[in-house]
């Protein structure tokens, strides 16, 4: 429905720069996730897209036209707030119909009912928001955002107030509905699973800047920066700061500062780096082992549900050189360079 472009978008509050020169293009019909820790400027970016906040600098373009000065109510953007922001003085049907009151719509009630069916709240139309569960409120908020057939759908951490099972269902539901309506969608989240499972493309943000844009696989296997490497992945990646003692063990280029290796790419072996096991945590299908080594503490995953090791055991671990990621002093990945046990 719309192609959205952000050029050098900036938002400065009194003291803090919440968004710091963002460049981004979202294709028509794409599902984009914006991923980042709390306070990194995700919501601020969304609210600028919706027209609620005025940008301090830069441009927002819808289909190539600059919309910075277009009021929120004329942008035709649907938004689902983290708190859902349902109108407590109206029932579900009135909530869903609310956006249609500002348009020339002849069969508003019928459209609202249809949308309510789509998000499966058709039986709750007479209820007040306070009489709904979290998941139901979420669905109503989604219906209200979609009923005016927006150019752009914005979701601000829509699942963060739901319990784990409901989150799983709603993830699939939201994906189904946005596909069905083919609406361009931006999902903001601090949950990497949410971002990677739902989105076509993921943008990773940190302190107001975009760290990396790419597919979930790009971000996981080829993180551009130290921040992305550390933020994505659970259990988190092993990051080894290279000092003299580490350089003695590892064979790495001199310009490298940090080496990263994912826990599942480390494994116990006959030969390799000698380590001493410190803790063993069964995690269901796998076991997470933490061990001390000359490189510092290392985490690795054993693909067994029953732990093979216990604290104090001495063993060797090894990894393939091409599985390592090497970062320079500025925290940028040095592509095509790797580390090996030397």
């Amino acid at each position, binding site marked *: 429905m719309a192609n959205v472009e952000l050029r050098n978008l900036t938002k400065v509050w009194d003291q803090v720069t919440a968004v710091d020169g963002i460049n981004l293009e979202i294709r028509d019909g794409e599902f984009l996730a914006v991923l980042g820790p709390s306070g990194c400027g995700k919501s601020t970016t969304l*609210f600028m897209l*919706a*027209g*609620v906040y005025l940008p301090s600098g830069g441009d927002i373009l819808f289909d190539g036209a600059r919309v910075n000065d277009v*009021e*929120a*109510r004329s*942008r035709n*953007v*649907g*938004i689902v*707030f*983290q*708190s859902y*922001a*349902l*109108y*407590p*003085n109206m029932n579900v049907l009135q909530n869903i119909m*609310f*956006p249609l*009151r*500002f*348009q020339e719509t002849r069969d508003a009630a019928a459209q609202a009912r249809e949308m309510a069916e789509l998000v499966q709240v058709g039986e709750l139309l007479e209820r007040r928001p306070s009489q709904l569960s979290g998941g139901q409120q979420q669905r109503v908020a989604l219906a*209200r955002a979609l009923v*005016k057939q927006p150019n752009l759908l914005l979701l601000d951490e829509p699942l963060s107030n739901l319990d784990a099972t409901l989150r799983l269902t709603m993830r699939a539901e939201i994906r189904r509905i946005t596909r069905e309506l083919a609406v361009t969608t931006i999902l903001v989240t601090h949950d990497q699973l949410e971002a990677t499972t739902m989105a076509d493309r993921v943008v990773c943000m940190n302190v107001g800047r975009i760290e990396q844009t790419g597919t979930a696989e790009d971000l996981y296997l080829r993180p551009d920066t130290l921040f992305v490497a550390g933020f994505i992945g659970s259990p988190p990646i092993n990051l080894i700061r290279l000092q003299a003692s580490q350089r003695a063990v590892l064979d790495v280029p001199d310009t490298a500062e940090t080496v990263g290796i994912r826990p599942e790419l480390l494994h116990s072996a006959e030969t390799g780096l000698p380590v001493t096991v410190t803790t063993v945590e069964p995690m269901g299908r796998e076991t997470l082992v933490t061990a001390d080594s000359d490189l510092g503490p290392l985490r690795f995953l054993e693909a067994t549900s029953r732990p093979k090791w216990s604290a104090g055991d001495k063993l060797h671990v090894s990894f393939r050189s091409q599985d390592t990621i090497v970062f320079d002093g500025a925290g940028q990945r040095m592509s095509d360079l790797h580390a090996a046990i030397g």
Partner: protein
Amino acid sequence: MAVAKTQADWELLARRSRRDRRIKQGLLIAFLTLVTIPVVVPFFWIFVISISARTGGVESEVLWRACAILVPTVFAYGAAHTVFRRARQRIYAAVILVLLAVVGLAFSVGDDLHLYNYRFMVNPNLVEELRGAATAGGQFPWVWVAFVNSLFVAATSMALKVTVATLAGYYLSRFAFRGRSQFLQGLLILEVFHPWMLTIPIFLVIFWIGLLNTLAGPILVLTAIDLPFFIFIMKGFFDAVPWDIEMSAMTDGASRRQAFRMVVLPQVRGGIIAIAVLGFIKGWEEYVFVTALRTGNSYWVMSTYLYYVAEDVMGVDYGVVAAVSVIYIIPSLLLYLFCQKFLTQLTLGGVKG
């Protein structure tokens, strides 16, 4: 065997806690009734005097006889309420007791009751009738003139207070502007000064702008006096309405004004009703400024009417004074009873700062 023993214990405990609860409830009702008596008796007394006193003297004998019937009735109902647990039983008990009380009152005081003290409501020339037109000079109005004036003062100042306090409260809650915190502090500081201290400057200001001896004077002054506190209350209510809802309305296509009217305003309804009631009652009861801002008898309101009935024109006829008081109280009382719910919300929602 162990199971049976536990069950017996549970039943004993349940019976004991039921009994305790009933005793506690009974004591509570008795206590509340006792502390209510000093509050209710003066009103009741005024009412009884207004329908029983004859010109000249005032006797409280009727009051005591009425109390001798009513107090046992109240306690009897308290006991019935504690003993009976079904709503239907309680209603029957109440109906029977009320009937008994009515019959008792009819026999004990029925002959002493009359409505003669209320003649001021239908007789425009109360004073002339008593003393002859020459004495009062035709200045003393019919009660309904004062009643309508009071209504006008109360309603107009209420409308002004509610409108200004709501808009100002919203602006203070939502917009950042230079001097906002100083403004808020200023509002609180104004509460420190009692408005009566300002009577003379206010008189001069009203005189200079030419509103002396008009109802507009007290209306404006009363509005100004209540505004700081009311603005503060409304700001508290608006602070409790989340930003999200307003932003959501604006992305849904509403203008800021529409968002305010359709989404925000309904959520501060409790606050608006509360300040409307308080503001109305303030205007209805006002005596100091309606007296201070007139020279002579240019306008009459209920409070000045009551004052002159009691002190000035008539000599003292307590029966008439009591009857005027009853008529004067009724509007405030009704308003209070109907809006009680919102006034109690005030303490919850409003004092958040």
